[in-house]
């Protein structure tokens, strides 16, 4: 569904990705693992067009991906960034509506009612400002907002970072529900247990390249790769 081929990218003069190649398949969850600074978030930002693609190709459904974040979002990729990026000047409702009104045409899968069913907590906080939410609520809102784009591919950058264990469990269960409903996902995670229990496929990034590819079961059984590339 999404293919990256020999991708080079980075921040300004600093190159982070050195010929990264990976593929995410329809209806499956791909986890991207690796140490801090390996290039996981950079990979996601490059997919979203937030960082310039210096060399290589990215194809979505076989077609080269358009350059600007706005076009990429329109093509069906939703992004939940590491910093969640809830709009502080907007209420919870407005944060959701901004996605719903643009992508929620008739018969769309995800509606305001459905995301509130998924995260009832958001329903109670509809008229709160975006900044009045706890970290866990912000994460729920970021995921709900992405779902309202009715994406074909959902990209999540460290959804468990900084959250209490009980919220991590809740986010896990909700993402599991989405996976069972057939939503394709790419997940960047530091939490090894969380990532491998959700993902079908796993790639490990080291120094801006893919250094290991396999399934969740494979990587759980492979102490060497865990040691060398993840420091688990």
């Amino acid at each position, binding site marked *: 569904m999404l293919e990256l081929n020999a991708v080079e990218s980075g921040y300004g003069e600093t190159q982070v990705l050195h010929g990264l190649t990976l593929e995410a398949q329809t209806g499956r969850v791909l986890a991207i693992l690796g140490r801090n600074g390996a290039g996981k978030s950079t990979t996601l930002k490059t997919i*979203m067009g*937030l960082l310039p693609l210096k060399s290589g190709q990215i194809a979505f459904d076989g077609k080269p991906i358009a350059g*600007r*974040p*706005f076009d*990429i*979002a*329109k093509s069906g990729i*939703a*992004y939940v*960034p590491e910093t969640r*990026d809830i*709009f*502080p*000047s*907007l209420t919870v409702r*407005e944060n959701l*509506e*901004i*996605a719903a*009104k*643009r*992508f929620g045409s008739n018969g769309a899968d995800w509606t305001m009612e459905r995301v509130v069913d998924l995260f009832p907590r958001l329903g109670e906080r509809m008229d709160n400002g975006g*900044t009045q939410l706890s970290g866990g609520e912000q994460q729920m809102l970021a995921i709900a*907002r992405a779902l309202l*784009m009715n994406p074909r591919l959902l990209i999540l950058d460290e959804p468990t970072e900084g959250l209490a264990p009980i919220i991590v469990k809740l986010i896990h269960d909700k993402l599991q529900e989405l996976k069972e409903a057939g939503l394709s996902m790419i997940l960047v995670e530091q939490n090894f247990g969380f990532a491998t229990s959700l993902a079908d496929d796993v790639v490990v990034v080291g120094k801006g390249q893919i250094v290991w590819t396999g399934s969740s079961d494979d990587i759980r059984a492979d102490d060497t790769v865990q040691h060398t590339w993840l420091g688990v």
Partner: protein
Amino acid sequence: MAHDLGFWTLQALNALQLSMLLFLLSIGLTVIFGLMHFVNLAHGSLYALGAYFAASLAAIGGYWMGFFLAPVAVAGVGILLYSGLIKRMRKSGPMAQVLVTFGLIFALLDLTRIFWGDLALAIEVPALLDGRTAILGIEYPTYRIFIIALGLFIFGALAFVLGRTQIGAMIRAGVDNDAMAACLGINVERLFFIVFCVGCALAGLAGVVAAPLLSVTPDMGLQILIPTLIVIVIGGLGSLKGAVTGSLIYGFVQTFGAVLAPQLASVLIYALLAAVLVIKPVGLFPAKG
């Protein structure tokens, strides 16, 4: 005279009228800056152009023709500036933007000289708004009341659009975080273009309504630029609340300063600006907290 209530009412209305004029100018500049981090120093020149267009149109079809068409014409100039210059300057950093738009001030200044000459032009107050009206126990020029009402109306309309509509939510989201807004499928560039055009039209409108009060001269844009910048620095960048608060503060400090402490009047507003910068460098109500 200072014990006369009517005197204070008069000064308060004068202050309010100046505030509303500054509000029309600063709201466009501040939202353009907040949304795209673009510094457009030529915003004051658009105000001058509004006054000149109004003067020419008034000569053809009277004040109201200028009132309705001059802001549209200024928005047209804005579109030319945007597609010819500003779009290319978007990523070139504040220094280059300041230099280019600063240069633009002088280019537009000389263009107005070439087209309209150096002599000051005057526009008549329209018959409908001529004369005085009794308000709060005093007789006050009807035209100035009209400016106050217009400013309040524009403020109300913008507060509604920004606060209650989908496009307003998109603009606020873009000011908060333009990258994330784009990731939600919002065409931030197009949004900026719309905001830029509306901002230009409002600057033009300010020029139109100011024209009958002041004489229309080539340097009027330059004269209004510094007060407008002070307003948005005091108010905080990118927010409607900041623009209206900054305008009110400037209008009242300037007007009452001139009455109560004429020797200090020209210094007072700069002292206030310095105080705000020391105590709250981001301004009173910045869009980004």
